[in-house]
């Protein structure tokens, strides 16, 4: 195969072709004696990937260890360690490499024993596709279900069900169809995008590389052709920019390069980025590599970037897009595969590694154990070796994460034993906001949620205006902490009341303890908090009232979101303009002092960004004038402009 390709192309074109090949990583899993090693050996042999000296060594070994008598035992091409060769089983993950003129492949060869779930999970974590072997004589076994579940739990989107040893069931189409039906019924419960069934004989090389002449009823591709053509490029996440900081390079005083491998998304020179958990923002100044600077880089690339501003980010921090940030949280819910002899007990502490972050964590709760044969949940007081369960973890350091289903790189972690340093678990973070909160809510409300309709009130805005004798308005304050938003907002409420208007204050901190009490201070949570406040203001306006929003609203994007929700025609942006020095002087609560000493993070103006409005409707000198004076000034201005109108 290689030589004919070489003859046809010549070496230069051959290399060009080889260079541009894509890569598919797949794993093979099956029960003991399903013929897995034989299948891989056959695949390598028929694809012309076995070196002559390996083949002659195998011919020699066939007599010593082989189980096939005179014929070459293809399994011996892939078995490795002495001990397992003597026991006749594969005991670990072994990686094999081969390529065809279409693609390059890495095989993770994983074992079939019940106790080796951990190896399979390990192999699956590196793969895009899994081959599930089924012995045609035995059909779907508990092992089959276990392997399929683990593969999909680890996020594999493509399954090939290889129904092997068809030669031993007379190439029966009925057997194939029955097993296909059985597997399909089980697989309906799995989260998998693509399942492909192939009847084959690894031993005889039928439908492995070459089409079987004994199964003319099978119209699909043989295994190798399928592996060469399966489309996996769209599995990558190119939407959510995530760059975990791995290392900071400072070769000289002028260069500060943040190194890391882009976990997902596309990074472009000039893009705004936010550094998490600090929340500080900047722009990408350059993307540097040994081969020269780039204007953009994509998921999977190891880069070194510089920023426009001096931002203090270090290993374990993460860069993301300001409008699309990961969760920043101390708590995560995850499915874990337990890999140690010592069981996991609630309350135990471990070292967690996730992206480039390392943190001490406590397993606060074991929600349930997954019975992987029945896919049912069982109560569990502990998780033991090779068990899979759902746990809650509490971390010392904040973690920047996405759900594993959305992002394999930022949603995965390992747990390490603090004493032995052994890797004891693999974890996949769950999207508990949607999976738990929304899911639970939707479940509770039955199917009604799927049939939502909106309805329009028959009382018109004009009628409300007439009744209340005022036009609705949302007055949106923005400014640094302690810039005077709250006292001014309440003074304004008083002043409006005095002048005969119906107005009320929506205070950010008050909403935080009520409507938004489930939210934290991550970028995403802040955004959601702002959205909710704006929705409440919209309802007030719809009811004909004047809403005074006093939230920090640090980002232009937050305020523009509020403007869109409430409606630009009834939205007034007011900038409480007080300098940072004055705000700090005024601060009685110690907020700034704590931030300055590094005891408190994510404080707007110190280590979290504040973007002053470019074109506010009105600027209040809250730093120099009293709240009452400011309230009067604002009322006068609004009345003069006709925005605040007695009807």
């Amino acid at each position, binding site marked *: 195969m*290689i030589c004919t390709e*070489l003859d046809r192309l010549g*070496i*230069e074109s*051959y*290399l060009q072709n080889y*260079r541009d*090949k*894509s890569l598919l990583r797949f794993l093979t899993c099956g029960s003991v004696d399903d013929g897995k090693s034989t299948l891989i050996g056959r695949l390598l042999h028929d694809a012309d990937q076995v*070196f*002559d*000296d*390996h083949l002659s*060594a195998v011919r020699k*070994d066939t007599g010593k260890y082989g189980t096939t008598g005179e014929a070459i035992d293809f399994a011996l091409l892939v*078995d*490795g*360690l*002495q001990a397992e060769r003597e026991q006749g089983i594969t005991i670990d*993950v*072994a*990686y*094999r*490499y081969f390529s065809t003129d279409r693609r*390059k492949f*890495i095989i993770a060869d994983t074992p079939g024993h019940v106790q080796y779930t*951990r190896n399979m999970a*390990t192999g699956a*974590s*590196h793969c895009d596709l899994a081959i599930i072997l089924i012995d045609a004589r035995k059909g779907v076994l508990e092992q089959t279900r276990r392997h399929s579940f683990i593969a999909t739990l680890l996020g594999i989107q493509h399954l090939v069900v290889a129904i092997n040893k068809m030669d031993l069931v007379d190439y029966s189409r009925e057997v194939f169809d029955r097993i296909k039906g059985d597997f399909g019924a089980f697989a309906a419960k799995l989260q998998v995008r693509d399942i492909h069934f192939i009847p084959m004989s690894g031993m005889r090389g039928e439908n492995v590389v070459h089409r079987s002449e004994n199964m003319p009823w099978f119209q699909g591709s043989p295994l190798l052709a399928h592996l060469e053509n399966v489309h996996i*490029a769209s599995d*990558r996440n190119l939407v959510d920019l995530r760059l975990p900081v*791995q*290392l900071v390079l*400072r*070769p000289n005083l002028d260069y500060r*390069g943040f*190194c890391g*491998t882009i976990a997902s998304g*596309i990074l472009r020179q000039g893009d705004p980025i936010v550094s998490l958990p600090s929340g500080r923002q900047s722009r990408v100044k350059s993307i*540097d*590599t*040994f*081969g020269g600077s780039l204007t953009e880089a994509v998921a*999977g*690339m*190891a880069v070194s970037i510089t920023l426009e501003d001096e931002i203090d980010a270090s*290993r374990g921090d993460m860069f993301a897009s300001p409008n699309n940030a990961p969760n920043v949280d101390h708590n995560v819910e995850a499915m874990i595969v337990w*890999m140690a002899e010592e069981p996991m007990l609630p309350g135990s502490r471990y070292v967690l*590694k*996730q992206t480039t972050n390392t943190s001490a964590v406590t397993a606060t709760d074991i929600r349930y154990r997954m019975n992987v044969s029945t896919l049912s949940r069982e109560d569990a007081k502990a998780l033991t070796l090779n068990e899979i369960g759902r746990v809650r973890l509490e971390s010392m350091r904040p973690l920047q994460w996405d759900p594993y289903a959305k992002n*394999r*790189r930022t949603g*995965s972690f*390992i747990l*390490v034993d603090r004493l032995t*340093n*052994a*890797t004891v678990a*693999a974890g996949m973070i769950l999207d508990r906001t949607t999976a738990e909160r929304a899911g639970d809510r939707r479940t509770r409300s039955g199917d009604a949620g799927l049939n939502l309709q909106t309805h329009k009130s028959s009382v018109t805005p004009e009628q409300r205006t007439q009744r209340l004798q005022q036009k609705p308005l949302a007055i949106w304050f923005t400014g640094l902490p302690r810039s005077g938003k709250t006292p001014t907002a309440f003074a304004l409420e008083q002043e409006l009341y005095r002048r005969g208007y119906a107005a009320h204050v929506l205070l950010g901190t008050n909403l935080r303890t009520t409507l938004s009490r489930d939210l934290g201070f991550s970028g995403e949570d802040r955004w959601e908090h702002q959205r909710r406040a704006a929705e409440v203001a919209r309802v007030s306006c719809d009811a004909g009232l004047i809403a005074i929003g006093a939230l920090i609203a640090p980002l232009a994007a937050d305020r523009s979101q509020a403007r869109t929700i409430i409606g630009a025609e009834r939205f007034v942006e007011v900038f409480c303009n007080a300098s940072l020095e004055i705000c700090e002087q005024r601060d009685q609560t110690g907020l700034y002092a704590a931030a300055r000493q590094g005891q408190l993070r994510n404080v707007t103006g110190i280590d979290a960004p504040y973007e002053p409005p470019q074109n506010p409707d009105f600027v209040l000198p809250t730093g120099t004038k009293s709240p009452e004076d400011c309230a009067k000034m604002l009322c006068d201005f609004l009345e003069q402009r006709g925005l605040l109108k007695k009807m």
Partner: protein
Amino acid sequence: MTKTYTLTHLQQLENESIQIIREVAAEFQNPVMLYSIGKDSGVMLRLAEKAFYPAPLPFSLLHVNTTYKFREMIAFRNQLMKDIGATLIEKINLEGVKQNINPFDHGTQRYTHIMKTETLKQALTEGGYDAAFGGARRDEEKSRAKERVFSFRDSRHQWDPKNQRPELWDLYNGRVKQGESIRVFPLSNWTELDIWLYIHLEKIPMVPLYFAKERPVVRRNGTWIMVDDERLPLQKGETPEMRMVRFRTLGCYPLTGAVESSATTVPEVIEEMLRNKNSERQGRMIDFDEAGSMEQKKREGYF
């Protein structure tokens, strides 16, 4: 044409290796990179340069010199270190030299054990390194196929195939106690063809021994052994002859077989390799002893 943003397999391998090398620099106190002068070392070194560009390498290179390396290897090594400005530590087993340990009188196994494996362990202990990079690939040899990227070694530098840590995603567990260490293999997923193609594309300088040239050789055990200096004892009836040969792998000259070849450029070497389907370690006598010999050596602390 719309952009697909797909990375080729070689770009994926390169990026993964860089990630691994950076991870070691970030997580270990005192890493070192084993540099053996061969093609895999050459690629690994280039990847390390890329990983830290524009900063210099944050670790030293370590070369275990058995004193029977090809002369051209040492000359190449010295020049390259000058060119890239890297720091090289050369380790020679002086005790072994004093006792004149050599492959002819002491046998391949004993010689390799003393001058290579033991010397390496000594150097690692003396340096107090908690991580050591090696250029091994999983496709080289069967027992390597199961090797981890981060391979745990106990305080006696020994490898226990039953006591290795599961490796998931790109999350490497490099936590060690005092005296323990990790051998790190950033080229784990590269194949021989990948290495050569990368050398070709990146124009990585290589020792001339990889390319065919007339060299003085003698025929032994079905392979050509180069008479690199006067220390090679000629057996009865042996006369060195000049042959166009090259080496697929480089090590100690008395233990490294050459193949007859006319390949003088990287593409020619690759073409010859592809057409001549014999795996590369065949020229290396160290593996010949018996099946599983590499595994045994690894247990003892060999890379």
